[in-house]
């Protein structure tokens, strides 16, 4: 992945460790190389599923990869066990949304802080905010990173320091 910053290629390791521990007995230990391997596997998983989902989009001459495309790709690639709980998850997620646009914006803004408790969206919508969460930012060149959506991302959550927002959640030393 040319040009991708190292820390942006993987999920934050603190989050990964926390999830691993949820399924392990208390006395289990995890070596550092195992943690890093899981990080790499997760990124590979996202890329693998996304590529398949995107192929379907292109066949159907669509430009936006949707949640349905992701679920379809999982079933096609053998992750049948995932598709059922995730369909349930998506269904319930949509039912909990109030105003669709603000809810989607709120969920996006929640990710930089990664706080576990619920919180309201701290920012108002930028001018010309689009219903789908995409707008002129998607097509303007951005100096804030390597992706067109960086402007939209930073506008939504003040995600300026690329790694700092995750530093405060490293609370699970081995």
């Amino acid at each position, binding site marked *: 992945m040319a040009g991708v910053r190292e820390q942006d290629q993987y999920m934050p390791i603190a989050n990964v460790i926390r999830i691993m521990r949820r*399924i392990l007995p208390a006395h289990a*230990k995890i070596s550092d190389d195992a943690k890093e391997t*899981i990080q790499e596997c997760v990124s590979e998983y996202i890329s*693998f599923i996304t590529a398949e989902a995107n192929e379907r989009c292109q066949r159907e001459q669509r430009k936006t990869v949707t949640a349905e495309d992701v*679920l379809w790709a999982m079933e096609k690639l053998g992750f049948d066990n995932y598709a059922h*709980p995730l369909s349930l998850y998506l269904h*319930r997620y949509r039912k909990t949304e109030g105003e669709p646009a603000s809810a989607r914006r709120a969920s996006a803004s929640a990710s930089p802080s990664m706080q576990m408790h*619920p919180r309201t969206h701290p920012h108002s919508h930028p001018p010309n905010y689009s219903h789908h969460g995409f707008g002129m930012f*998607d097509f303007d060149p951005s100096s804030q990173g390597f992706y067109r959506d960086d402007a939209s991302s930073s506008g939504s959550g003040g995600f300026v320091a690329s790694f700092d927002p995750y530093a405060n959640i490293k609370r699970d030393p081995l």
Partner: protein
Amino acid sequence: MQVHVYNNNAKMDQNQHVQPAQEAYGENQYQSNPVTTPTVLPTQTSDSSLSSSYPRQHPNDPQLEAMYELRQERLQQQLNNFWAKQCQEIQEATDLRTHSLPLARIKKIMKSDEDVKLVSAEAPVVFAKACEMFIMELTLRAWANVEEDQRKIIKKHDIASSISRADVFDFLIDTVPRPLENILDQQGFVGLPTSTVPTPLNDACYHNPPPQALVPGNPYGSPRIAVGMPILDQNHPGLQIHHFLTPMEPTPTPTPNPQNPSPSSDC
């Protein structure tokens, strides 16, 4: 052919190796019902069919057979319980807007592929939950590997071993190649391609096929002396390496496998 790293006796070796049969069919995990009692139930048709469809290395050892069956059943039960619990947790979740993984990071990884144009807001949400389950499934499988070796620390090769036993994880072979590459190098298979084309049945038989049928100096039944593995040492030279040969074709007519293995169920 499967290549495994072990640091314990021959009993564990065979069960480690034969286990891939259970996970050759991803759908089985979804279709199976959870076992409600700790007793192994040989009457489960899908499990029996799964077991007998995979050729065994040592059909004459009923003790190893029984041990293999028990471990396969245990892992399958753990996975079934895991998936049932996931559905239950999602059904009962009260806060669906708190995600255990950052959505912005997921989106960035999705868009690292230049062919991906636009990503809807819900796609990273689905991925956040999917990756959470993916991490837990890999961890659960790796931990089963650790327990069989009577260790308490998950190492990289536990993950590599787990990945090599389920076709659904073929896409990860290049992501965690080091243990297999080291093993293959020691077996004299330098330069062997590490990727395989999936086939509908028993893909595990075709992973990293060796160029020759026999591996001199590595017969089953005479394992090398085990050396205790230091913590965090991924490439300890004392690791035992066993190379198991399997027929290239599955059993055409699998038969139900009773709890006490009988000659008719042997491959």
